[in-house]
């Protein structure tokens, strides 16, 4: 049965979780959704799922409706950081605990949610930058970088750009000669890269905010008669299967992982929260980075 009001004891029937997903804008997101769904099933938690189709107002509506339906716990991946206070207060008033996944919210009132589980996009950008500084330590000349940004205004795009810029900014030899949005898609990645290749003669490094754009760009680079990974080094973020394949094939030089597989961790946290155990305010997903050699090793065992 449904919990009366407030946090139902896990023993008093099946736990119901309301999960509000941002959307299904990418394969990464879909893998994320799947992971949550599968983990919920495995953990015996009944999942109410809703897809906000990239709209914050839809997510707020969904959360309201979860409150209305008196679920036991609410989890969601915020579309953006701001603007959640009102609905989170409603949840708090209804005694429903909230867990954030994948992205944070900027509420000053930290009691509005129990914990935040997810990646740190700025850190991802930093990791990409660090590898590049390491890699080009020996090089003297200017290193010309082109950047394929994610959807303008979106949090991963903003943060991955910021983290990367923060690291390479300390060394004047790195120059971002062109930076444009590729909307996180392969087609746009290819199209933008084609234009870069013509307008910017010297490109040493490509930094793509996700694998898909990098994969599109690889086609463009090959079309221009250059060798991706050699003539132009490519760094990207995500580590989806196709990306890992390209990394293993030597076309991509380095990938910063951004794991969508938050499901099991989320369910663990949920159980702890419902059992009123202490949970840390911030749980960073276990993420790593891959070089070409590492990719070859783990390729076979990748799940997504």
């Amino acid at each position, binding site marked *: 049965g449904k919990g009366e009001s407030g946090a139902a004891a896990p023993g008093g029937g099946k736990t119901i979780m309301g999960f509000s997903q941002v959307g299904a*804008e990418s394969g990464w997101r*879909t893998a994320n959704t799947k992971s949550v769904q599968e983990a919920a099933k495995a953990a015996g938690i009944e999942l109410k799922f809703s897809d906000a189709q990239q709209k914050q107002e839809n997510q707020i509506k969904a959360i309201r409706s979860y409150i209305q339906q008196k679920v036991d716990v609410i989890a969601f991946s915020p579309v953006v950081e701001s603007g959640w206070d009102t609905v989170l207060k409603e949840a708090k008033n209804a005694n429903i605990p909230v867990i954030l996944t994948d992205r944070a919210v900027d509420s000053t009132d930290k009691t509005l949610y129990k914990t935040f589980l997810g990646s740190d996009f700025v850190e991802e950008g930093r990791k990409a930058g660090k590898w590049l500084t390491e890699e080009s330590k020996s090089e003297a000349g200017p290193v010309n970088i082109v950047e394929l940004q994610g959807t303008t205004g979106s949090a991963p795009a903003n943060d991955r750009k910021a983290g990367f810029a923060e690291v390479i900014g300390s060394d004047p030899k790195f120059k971002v000669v062109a*930076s444009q949005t590729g909307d996180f*898609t*392969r*087609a746009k990645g290819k*199209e933008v890269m084609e*234009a870069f290749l*013509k*307008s910017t003669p010297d490109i040493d490094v490509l930094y793509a905010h996700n694998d898909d754009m990098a994969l599109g760009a690889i086609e463009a680079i090959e079309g221009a008669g250059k060798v991706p990974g050699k003539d132009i080094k490519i760094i990207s973020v995500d580590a989806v299967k196709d990306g890992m394949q390209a990394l293993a094939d030597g076309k991509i030089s380095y990938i910063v992982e951004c794991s969508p597989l938050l499901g099991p961790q989320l369910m663990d946290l949920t159980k702890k929260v419902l059992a009123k155990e202490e949970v840390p305010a911030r749980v960073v997903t276990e993420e790593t980075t891959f070089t070409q050699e590492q990719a070859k090793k783990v390729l076979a065992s990748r799940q997504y």
Partner: protein
Amino acid sequence: MNRRLLWPAVVLALLLLLNLFFTPGFLSIEVKDGHFYGSLIDILRFGAPLVLVSLGMTLVIATGGIDLSVGSVVAISGALACLAISQGTGVLAAVALAVAVALVLGAFNGFLVAVIGIQPIVATLILMVAGRGLAQLITDGQIITVTDAGFKVIGGGYLFMLPFGILLALVVLAATVFLTRRLALGLLIESVGGNAEASRLAGLRSRGILITVYAFAALCAGIAGVMVASNVSSADGNNAGLWIELDAILAVVIGGTLLTGGRFSLGGTVLGALVIQTLTTTIYSIGVPPETTLLFKALVVAAVCLLQSAAFRARAFPRRERPVTQPVQDTTEVAR
């Protein structure tokens, strides 16, 4: 050339010049790996899907309708083709399947508009929303990557040294011109769009014409979808063809076709699509930062419209142009 098309052409030329200023070699075309290579070729190649979708959209708009679902159809057909190929179907059969399904979806739109009598914008909104979901259902929300070399040709390959996509768009353009201007479809479409009741009383089968037109629009979108998928060797149900309907409508309008229906100009549409694609490429090439991209776009779109407007020209350049009181429509068209 049609006078209305003069100004979009001028804007196109200006954009190209702007590029030339920033990228000196912009207009040059070289031969690389046995085929043409250069920015102009790129514009045509990436513009080909938009040209295709816009051609279909032109006919729909000429009947006084609008088709919001083309973007979803692009995604569905690309997804179907890739799914079929990844499951071992031959390229031709897979493409045929994708295009056939697109055709059926278009006929469904046409049915809603012509037989049930639903306003086009909501009728096609249904497929716009549901279709995107269908595409994701087909791809399971993932990106389906295919490695078939034959499939690659459609959007990324070459024939006679030219990208295959450009040739394909040219073929469809020629077919459309033939159907509408050599055969009498164009007259009947313009008639239905100009005055539906009068057309009915003149004995036109407007239902049949409407269904044909919506099916054709979806067919074009279907081909474009295959082309888009082939270009990146993968189907992206989430993002393929996203917002292409807006670009297509914009292309049609820049091409001088009125959204109220009636007269249409295929040449204008192609020009409009090229203006839009050139604008996109320009933004990438001259390094407009992503945050100001839309401002730049707004500027160019407003400039095209204003230049096209006789009323504006009369005010802006009072001495060179005679004041025109009513929108003067040109009756001559090249392909007619």
